[in-house]
């Protein structure tokens, strides 16, 4: 478990990135820190592995203040996945994934075996092992980043907008796999994003931050959509613009289509068994993620 206790971070130039922030991230959960750029979310994440030290307050990992831990040893116990993958460009896929095990003194053969397991876990073709990062697609690079973050079997995985730079189709696939992976391995994940759709899709718990890491709302995705705490949350979610207020409408072919407040189609309605309602187009709105409340449009 990660606990922030009244943490404040004042940078040398006087800017206060984080002001009196407290939060518990329960063990084994996927917690999303969401907010616009400059709200302090990345600063908060970097306090966990001591890439940033708080000016005051404490960050505890499993009850122990990280300030008392050796940063290098601490970082090897905590996985880190960054935006644009952060892969070492001069090392192959296999070498990148094996970085932390090798730093920890695991021998070459065992590291190689571990690399193979990790590549399989994140869905990377074993043939890519000897490629260099520049020879991979953006999505493949991010998978390598995740595999590297998990290779030393850390208790905590920090993810700093890891899917920000890949195209939307790949991003949603990566998100789906991360959910699945999280269910499989149960690592505590702290995930930073500015994308609320991503937060809703991934988080067990979402913490939405205003400037200075002021918590606007903390809760499950369902709570965010159903009970937004204030206007800031509503605006951030797009609730005020009608993006998440969905209505049923009957399409020309008789199927039921779900549209937002602007009449833009958002998907089709599914039966509880996952099949689309009314025999309409399969495949939408059925992935089990939290969905905004749907109300019948007047006259639909």
């Amino acid at each position, binding site marked *: 478990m990660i606990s922030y206790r009244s943490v404040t971070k004042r940078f040398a130039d006087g800017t206060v990135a984080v002001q009196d922030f407290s939060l518990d991230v329960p063990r084994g959960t996927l917690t999303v820190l969401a907010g616009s750029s400059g709200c302090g979310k990345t600063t908060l994440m970097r306090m966990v*592995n001591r*890439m940033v030290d708080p000016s005051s307050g404490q960050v505890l990992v499993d009850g122990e203040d990280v300030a008392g831990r050796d940063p*290098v*040893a*601490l*970082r*090897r116990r905590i996985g*880190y996945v*960054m935006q*644009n993958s*952060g*892969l*070492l*460009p*001069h*090392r*192959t896929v296999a070498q990148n994934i094996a*970085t*932390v095990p090798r*730093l920890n003194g695991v021998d070459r053969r065992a590291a190689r075996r571990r690399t193979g397991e990790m590549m399989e876990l994140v869905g990377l073709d074993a043939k890519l092992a000897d*490629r*260099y990062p*520049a*020879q991979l697609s953006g999505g493949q690079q991010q998978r390598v980043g995740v595999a*590297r973050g998990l290779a030393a079997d850390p208790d905590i995985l*920090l993810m700093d907008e890891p899917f920000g730079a890949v195209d939307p189709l790949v991003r949603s696939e990566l998100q789906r796999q991360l959910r699945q992976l999280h269910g499989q391995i149960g690592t505590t994940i702290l995930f930073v994003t500015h994308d609320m759709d991503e937060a809703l899709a991934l988080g067990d718990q979402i913490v939405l931050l205003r400037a200075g890491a002021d918590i606007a709302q903390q809760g499950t995705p369902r709570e965010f959509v159903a009970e937004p705490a204030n206007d800031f949350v509503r605006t951030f979610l797009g609730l005020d613009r009608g993006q998440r207020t969905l209505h049923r409408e009957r399409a020309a072919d008789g199927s039921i289509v779900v549209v937002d407040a602007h009449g833009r189609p958002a998907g089709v309605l599914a039966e509880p068994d996952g099949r689309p309602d009314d025999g309409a187009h399969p495949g939408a709105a059925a992935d089990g993620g939290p969905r905004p409340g749907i109300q019948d449009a007047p006259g639909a």
Partner: protein
Amino acid sequence: MNWVLDNLPLIADRTWAHLATSLPAILAALVISVPLGWLAHRYRILNGPVLTGAGLMYAIPSLPLFIVLPVLIGTGVRDVVNVVVALTLYGVALLVRSVADGLDGVPPEARGAAVALGYPPLRRFLTVDLPLAGPVILSGLRVVAVSTVSLCTVGAVLGIPSLGLLFTDGFQRGILAEILTGIVLTVVLALALDRLLVVLGRLAMPWTRAEAGA
């Protein structure tokens, strides 16, 4: 041509002496430039003094340097060590900037990733920063190699053996073939060393080919 065939052992001797003077100087320049370049890269306040100082070193004319050095380091006037030291200084003058530029050019994401992964500082420098600065350092090293091989001939004026002795001797005795041999071999040696560095660079930095092909 006859002169060449008649003097093959002499030519081999001079070529060997030339290499034995240039190669240690090139290597020493590299070894000294890495920490100096790192200082210039790491501490902004040292950046100006180190790079300007290095640049000024290159402005010292070589012949007076060869004469002053024995006094400074206590060697004999005709000692080959003088030439090695002088060439090293010129090499450092050129290479410090390449090292500093190369380190400045290391992608910050890569450096940040290395920190986040738990690299201790020295290991990070040696296995992440330095290799990633490698292509820039290599291009500086190629200039140093060629310049050192050519400057090495100046020692001949003091009678220190190198291919340069072939031109001075050729001039004094009016043997055109000897002068030409000296010039051609100096150029060939410089080019060969340059090629060798390119090949070694490719072997040591295989990812640069991958990046070029991507």
